[in-house]
């Protein structure tokens, strides 16, 4: 348990990067990665919830009785999800419409409950915040990477997060491979990315 804060942070970026190393939180991963802007937006929202729920769970860990800990964690998480929902509705309305029901569904994202259960309830506030930030950033990166592949092949564009800019990659002659942005493409693409990660990890 002698890990430093920095190690808690960096492990989320590679060693335990969700959804590859920890196979959790697949639903938002598959659903919002049609475009890079959506993927990154979702990642940022989930990171916010993850960091603050980790901090609060860690701060309250000696008060919460272990028998009712899961409902307590869920209430903490749901509170931050509502905050994200209301803030997004106010400042990023188009993104809010795009992500639709997947914003309230952050509450049942197993990554967040999983980190509360596996990490925050056993560790100090600083370590939990670092863990939440690391795992959250890892999740955002993974969503961004998957979305970049799907959007580049499926629509021939890359949309820049938090702006209306859309880069056209291949010029007007490009015929989009729509399989990639449809549902099946998400599963196949994630499966193949996982295989590549396994291949690299083996060395």
């Amino acid at each position, binding site marked *: 348990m002698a890990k430093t804060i920095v190690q808690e942070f960096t492990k989320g970026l590679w060693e335990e990067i969700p959804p590859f190393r920890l*196979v*959790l*939180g*697949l*639903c938002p991963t*598959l*659903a919002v990665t049609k475009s890079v802007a959506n993927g990154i937006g979702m990642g940022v929202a989930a990171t916010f919830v993850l960091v603050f729920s980790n901090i609060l769970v860690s701060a309250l860990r000696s008060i919460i009785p272990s028998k009712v800990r*899961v*409902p307590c964690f*869920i*209430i903490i998480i*749901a*509170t931050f*999800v*509502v905050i994200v*929902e*209301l803030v997004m509705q106010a400042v990023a309305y188009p993104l809010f419409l795009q992500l*639709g*029901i997947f914003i*309230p*569904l952050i*509450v*049942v*994202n*197993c990554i967040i*409950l999983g980190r509360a259960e596996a990490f925050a309830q056993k560790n100090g506030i600083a370590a939990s915040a670092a863990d939440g930030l690391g795992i959250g950033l890892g999740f955002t990166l993974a969503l961004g990477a998957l979305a970049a592949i799907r959007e580049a092949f499926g629509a021939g564009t890359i949309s820049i997060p938090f702006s209306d800019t859309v880069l056209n990659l291949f010029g007007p002659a490009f015929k989009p491979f729509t*399989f990639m942005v*449809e*549902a*099946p*493409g*998400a*599963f*196949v*693409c*994630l*499966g*193949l990315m*996982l*295989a*590549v990660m*396994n*291949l690299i990890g*083996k060395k």
Partner: protein
Amino acid sequence: MGDLILLAVGAILVNNILLIQYLGNCPFLGTSKSMDNAVGMAMAVVFVLFMAGLVTWLLDYFILEPFGLRYITTIVFILVIAALVQFVELFLKKSIPALYAGLGIFLPLITTNCAVMGVCLINIKEEYNFIEMIISSLAYPAGFGLALVLFAGLRERIIIGRVPTPLQDVSIALVTAGFMSLSFLGFKGMI
């Protein structure tokens, strides 16, 4: 009547909750390694989702909507679902032990199954009336069960097969799910 049948077929096949709407994928990959687990999970989801759909719709219709409280929908729904799952578990344990033995370990997992919360939210978002809500709360989990059981059948075969090392386990399962999803996408022309 025709509309309701369309809604049911649409929810089971065309907008299949697992393969087209991408909800409930964690239990989909987690419990599909054996047929017994898949059937248990599918039954538990049908049971809980129907009750959760009913309760959350009534709550929204009679309390949240008239009093302008929709901004706390997320908290209310997740609490209702968590309480309901706990209640169903206790109820089954006391009164129908045989069913409890079958569903037992899958019930607590359902709280964090996004398919349950997802369908409750869809019912509200699409502004379904009472009958439509009943149909949707039955048809979506039926589609979940169908996809899960079919997929478990495929996956039992894959485990026996010789899969290249990096693709093993979750990776090949996702690729297989992709091709199943492709076949469900074929139903799109029906409606």
